[in-house]
Every structure is written in C-alpha cells, then in structure tokens.
C-alpha cells in the first residue's frame, strides 16, 4: 500500500510540475473567458456598416429593397437597445425575481407560456442570453418598425424605461447603407458594363467613393425590370459569402410582393390569406418519466436534455488528456530504464496501480482547477449574466448527473488508463506508441461524433447499442443521463463497464509485466496474445 502511495505521489508531483499540466489548467478557463467575452466584444465593436449599390431597373421594386435595409438597421438598433436596457435594469430585475420568489427556470417557463398565449411559437427563447431571452425584433411587427413615426415613438418609450442613473444609449452603426453609383459609371450603361466596372471595388482592389468619403463596397444588387416574373433573377454581387442577411431579406420581401400581386390578380383578398396562413396547430409535450402532475415538458427539460453534452465533452477531454500523460510517463520510464529498479522495490501490479492513481489525482486536480476557475470567472464577471448562467446551470445539473459524471469519469479513466499503460509498456518511443494509438484514436472519436445527436434520440437503437460497448459506455451513458434511460440499462452497462475495467487491468498488468523489461521492436499482435497465455515473464 505504502509503495502504491509513494509511486502515486511521485507521479502526481512530477506531472504537476510539467508545462503540459499548466497549459491544460489555463487553457480551459482561457477558452471560457473567450466564450464569454468574445460575443460581447464583437457586439460592442460591431460589424462595420456595409455599403451596397442598388441598380433598380424596375419601377417600384427598388423601394421594397430599401425598406428592407431600413428594417435590418432598425432591428440592429433594437437589439442594442434591448441589451442596453436589460443591463441597466439587471439589478431591478433580479430584485423583482427575488420579491416574486421565482428563479431563472420559472422565469423561462413563464416566458414560454406568454409566447404560447400570443401564438408566437415561432419566436425562439435563448436561455443562455439573459439580456435577450427573446429578440424584440422577432416580437414587434414589421409594419411598426417600418413606420417612421411609430418607430420614433417606440424608441422614446423604450428609453424612458431606463433608470435615471443609467448610462446614455448610443445608437450602433447602421447595418447596411445604400450608396449611389460613382460619377464615372452611368446608370445608362448595360448591366454587364456596370458589373465589369464595379468588380475591382467589389473585390476590394479599389476603395469606393461616396461623396468625399472612401469606403469598402460590400455588395451590388441588380433588380431587373420584371423582377417578379418567375424567369427573372436578381443579380447579387459580393465577395462576402457569409453575410447573407441582406439578400435573404430582399428575396423574402420580393417573394411576398409577388404573392400579393398574384392574389389580387386572382381576386383573393390578401388579409384573408394572411389570416388563414396564421392558423397553427399546437402541441403540449409530456414526458412519462416525470412525476405525476408535472409531466409537461417545458423549455427547462429541453435544456436538461442537452446539458450532458457539456459533461461528455469534459469527460472526454479529461480522460484522454490524462491517459495520454500516463502513456508518456510509462514510455519515459521504460526508455530511461528506470522500470527495473522500480520492479526490485515493488510488484508490477503495485507499480501499475500507483502510476494510474497518481495520474488520476493529476486529472482530478485539473478538473477541480477548471471548476474553480469557472466559478472564479463567473464571480469575477459577477455581472447579471454570470449569476444568470450559474443559476441556469444549477437548475439543470441534478445530483444524478453529477453522480453519473463522477462514476463515468472514474470508470472511463481506469479503463483507458490501463489500456494506455499497457501500450506504453511495450513501446520504447512515443513514435512506436502511435502505431497502436491510431486504431484506438478512431475508437475514441466515436463518442465525440455521436455526442450532439444522441440527445435528440437518447433511447434510440444507436445510443442503446453504443452504451453496451465499454469503450463508449461512459460517454454515451453520460450523454443519455438526462433522458432517464431504463434502469436495466444503467446498471447493466455499468456492470459491463466495471467488469471490462477489471479485465483490462488483468490483461494490461500481464502485458506490462513482460513489456517493461523488453527492449527492441514492439511485439506483433500475435506475440502479445502469446504473452497473455504464458504464465511467467
């Protein structure tokens, strides 16, 4: 026992001293920090205003396109406004939630019900964005946004909600802005000529001139004369293939216009059509696994379904990063020929156990550091969003989930640790180890690949089948945890996993015993099987 402890202790201390360990420790909170900061950073810096040339060959359709630009611009202002107000009133809101004794989850439920009553099931709730659970832009009718008077009034009303001591609101840059053709290109030119002349600007080779200012040209749209005819296409030129908002919204508006005209040509009143089109059949979802009277599936349940993904990912990273550590250490001890002295002081089993436990302690330290730094970041950021997210996570993470995480971490770690230590013992260099690692890597990729779609069918055939294979049991079962898989499967797969851990230990210990003293080429698979049969090293 003492031996195992001392080996584990050394393994732990030496690993904790390595650069890799500290990089691992710092990388994770660094990434979380980025994830928190980046959207805010982008939002604040904002995307610069994009400039567009519109060549309108039709009579009135250009106006529709221009309206759309206005709409996008106002939605952007709306988003900024909403965030601004939300932040400024965060304390008030929290106070209110406290007074009414509701938590984040209940608030979400209320919001969902509210939307249902409004028959706005098309509006999405983003629970991870407390400053913008639903986008105001999605809720407010477009006609209202497009009406200048109403828009001005709305803005005034919204800003009046701000507490007196709130910082002033500054409008963000426009999302899109139309610029006229430059002087040396005539609108009289043919489309082809204009396209040819504008290409260098669109490519970014030349800066475009708008009056006195020099700007980058984002896009050009050519609306043909009979744009609404089925055989006529809009011509949209842009180097940026990612930002499709403008084109999407213009196309949607023109399609709408085309339908309107067709209705009136056929003598159908378009408001009747709209009314009919707004008919929706709704559903209430129930989950038989939930307690009686509480079976209704709400947004929280949906989040809960997906919450394990985070855990699975953490499980995967933790298990493989520390099992890799073990592999490296074993190879180091072997190639440095230290093993033999060790074996005169302890048995191979003790050595194997000591190493595996020591490295496990490294892994646990790393995870604790991660969790600690997460809490640290949330506290540091102590903004309303931080407590909100923490609240939400707390609401979603059940004791069963945590228990599952600990169990699957330990079982999964030991399974892979013994496997890796066995491999380490038969290789003299990392390079040799890679030959064995390649197929293992493939196996290891499976849970990552299935991670995101298992929650959508947590008790389906694929998920069930994968659960029974010990290589994947920890990840897949963790993945399924929130969907209450059948008890038989929980205990059955756990049993199979534990038995496999025992088997891997026995096999590894044997291979380790023979492998560590061996020099030269790593053995072939057949030879390995021979080792398993032989009784003495």
């Amino acid at each position, binding site marked *: 026992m003492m*031996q195992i402890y001392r080996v584990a202790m050394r393994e732990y201390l030496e690993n904790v001293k390595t650069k890799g360990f500290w990089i691992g420790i710092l990388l994770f909170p660094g990434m979380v920090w980025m994830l928190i900061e980046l959207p805010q950073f982008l939002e604040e810096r904002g995307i610069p205003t994009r400039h567009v040339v519109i060549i309108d060959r039709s009579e009135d359709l250009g106006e529709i396109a221009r309206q759309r630009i206005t709409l996008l611009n106002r939605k952007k202002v709306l988003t900024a406004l909403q965030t601004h107000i939300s932040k400024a009133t965060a304390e008030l809101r929290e106070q209110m939630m406290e007074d009414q004794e509701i938590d984040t989850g209940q608030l979400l439920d209320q919001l969902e019900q509210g939307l249902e009553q409004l028959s706005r099931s098309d509006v999405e709730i983003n629970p991870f964005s407390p400053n913008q659970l639903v986008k105001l832009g999605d809720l407010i009718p477009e006609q209202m946004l497009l009406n200048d008077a109403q828009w001005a009034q709305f803005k005034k009303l919204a800003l009046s909600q701000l507490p007196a001591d709130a910082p002033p609101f500054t409008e963000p840059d426009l999302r899109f802005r139309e610029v006229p053709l430059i002087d040396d290109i005539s609108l009289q030119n043919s489309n082809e000529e204009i396209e040819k002349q504008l290409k260098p600007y669109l490519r970014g080779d030349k800066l475009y001139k708008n009056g006195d200012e020099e700007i980058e040209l984002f896009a050009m749209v050519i609306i043909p004369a009979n744009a609404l005819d089925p055989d006529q296409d809009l011509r949209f030129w842009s180097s940026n293939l990612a930002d499709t908002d403008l084109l999407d919204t213009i196309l949607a508006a023109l399609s709408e216009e085309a339908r309107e005209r067709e209705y009136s040509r056929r003598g159908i009143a378009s408001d009747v059509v709209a009314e009919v089109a707004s008919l929706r059949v709704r559903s209430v979802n129930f989950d038989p696994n939930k307690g009686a009277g509480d079976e209704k599936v709400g947004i929280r349940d949906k989040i809960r379904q997906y919450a394990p993904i985070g855990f699975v990912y953490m499980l995967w990273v933790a298990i493989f990063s520390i099992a890799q550590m073990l592999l490296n250490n074993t190879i180091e001890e072997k190639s440095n020929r230290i093993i033999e002295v*060790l074996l*005169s002081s*302890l*048995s191979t089993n003790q050595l194997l156990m000591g190493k595996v436990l020591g490295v496990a302690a490294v892994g646990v330290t790393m995870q604790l550091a991660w969790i600690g730094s997460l809490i640290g970041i949330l506290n540091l950021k102590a903004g309303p969003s931080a407590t909100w997210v923490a609240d939400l996570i707390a609401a979603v993470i059940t004791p069963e989930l945590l228990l599952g995480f600990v169990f699957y971490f330990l079982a999964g770690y030991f399974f892979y640790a013994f496997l890796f230590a066995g491999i380490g013992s038969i290789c003299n260099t990392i390079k040799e180890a890679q030959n064995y690692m390649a197929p293992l890597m493939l196996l290891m990729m499976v849970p990552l690949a299935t991670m995101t779609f298992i929650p959508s069918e947590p008790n389906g055939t694929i998920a069930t089948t994968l659960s029974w294979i010990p290589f994947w049991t920890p990840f897949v079962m963790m993945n399924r945890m929130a969907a209450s898989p059948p008890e038989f499967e929980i205990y059955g797969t756990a049993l199979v996993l534990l038995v496999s851990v025992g088997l891997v230990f026995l096999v590894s210990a044997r291979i380790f015993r023979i492998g560590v003293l061996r020099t030269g080429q790593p053995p072939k698979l057949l030879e390995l099987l021979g080792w398993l049969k032989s009784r003495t090293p």
Partner: protein
Amino acid sequence: MSDPIELRNVTKNFGDFRAVDDVSFTVPVGTVCGFLGPNGAGKTTCIRMMLDILRPTSGSISILGTPRALDVRERIGYLPEEKGLYKKMTATAVIAYFAMLKGIAPAVAKKTARELLERYGLGDFQNHKCEALSKGMGQKVQVLASIAHDPDLVILDEPFSGLDPVNQGVMEEVIRDIRARGKTVLFSTHVMSHAERICERIIVIAAGRIVFDGSVERAKALLPTIVRVRGTGAEAALAGLTAVTEALPSSDGREGVLELRLREGADPQELLKIAFEQGVALEVFEVVDPNLHEVFVHLVGEKAREAAFR
C-alpha cells in the same frame, strides 16, 4: 541463518533458448562475490531471477531466506545493468525516492541522500537535475540510490562500466564500505582487475552454466605456473624435466628468455634447485603468477567466442 543468496538447479528458458542451465550456488553472509562471464553468459538473467523480476523455468531461489525477493525488498539493494534515472528529478530527489520505495521515511531518505552524495564526491550536484549529469555521474547517483536504505544484500549488475579509472576506484571503495558493515555484495563485471582486488569469491558462468566457483586464489591455481629463465645451458637443463610441460620463447619479447610452463602442483623452487645443481648461470629467474584475466580467458575463451557468433 541461511545464506543471503541460494540458487538450486536454476534453469531459465526464453522460448526454445536456454539462457541459464542448471545453476546452483550460495553466497554466504559478509562475502563480496564477483559474478563473471562473457557476454550473453546469463549473468543478468540470473540476477533478475534473484530479484524476482524474472521467474526461473525450473529450480528454486532463496534470497535472505525467502523465495520472493519482494518480501524482503527493503533489505536488498539493486543496480540494474541498464542504468537510467528520472531526467527531471534532482539527484537528491531520485536517491530519496528509491530509498522511500524501500520503506525509508521521507525525511530520513532525503538526509541520507545528501550525506551519500557528499561522501562519494557528488556534493556539488545535489540539486542538479539528472539530465544535467554526465553518464558516469548519473551511474554513481544510481548506485547510491540502490544502497541508500542500507541493505543487507547488494546486487550490482556491471557497476564499473562507463566509469573513469578514478571513479572505478570510488566504486571499489563503495563496495568495500558495504562489506565493512558486514553486508553481502554480489556484482557482475567484465573487468577482472576489480574482481581480483575486491572479491574473496568468484563465480564464473559461461553459456548459462557455472564453470568456476571458488576463491580468487583457487581460480589462479587453475592455470599452470610459468617460470621465465635466461642463462647459458638453462634450456638443456630445465626444458626436459617432467615438471615442465612446455618450453617456449618468452611471450614478453625479451631476447633469450625462455618461458617454462609447469605441471600442476610442481614447485618453481625445484627448478631453481636443479638449475643450481647443474651449474647453470641464471641471469633471469622469474615466477609469473597468472592473473584473473588469463584465468578467465582460459575458462571461458572458447565459449565466449561461440556466444559471440551464435
């Protein structure tokens, strides 16, 4: 009390190959025993079996009275043939760690490590990482690591290889110090002069079999005594005697010197007497004692070559 090392009819096969063949010997308490043999003779294999790192195919081994060396690991010190240390640990930390694995308390282990490094000339390297040590220094550190827990039985596999003459001397000193405390030492080597200087007992193994086991003196007695003579009429008077098996020109190249190989048990004094009686005017009369090196070549020469070409 039983002897610290006892091997009885030990055989070890690797697949079809027999590396150790029916080896038996015992080493009594307080002995320094040299374990000699050509490359591939089976020394390392025997040593590993003594330490229970390998298991014999047949036969039995008893170390400090038990068949399992691990049970008495804290009383054994072991320096393996292939030497290595943790690169990132300091000399002191490595010695202390190995001592701790043998059951020494951490604080004591650290103190002992410092003392040992100081005593054997590595005091300045206490806090150097092992990767910063030269090969020889590293090897010294490892030897110290193997004896830091003051074991009753020390087994060293080629402790002298890779050391310069001065440090070979230090190594001999280490072994003598261990013996001075009444402990038992077994070490393997290819350098006969060390064995000759510090062993009271040698075991020679070749191709897996023991070819000699006894004191250094007895080993030397295996080779015929050689007498070198020069003087008018010396050859006529002495070469034909029954005590002389062979008479050749001296191998040391001196002009006119004759080398006489004596029959086993023959006394060089007899020769001197006869030469005197016959009135030979002797200019040179030297009795050459065989050294262990020659004994070794005599004992295993053929087998060593065979092994080399196997």
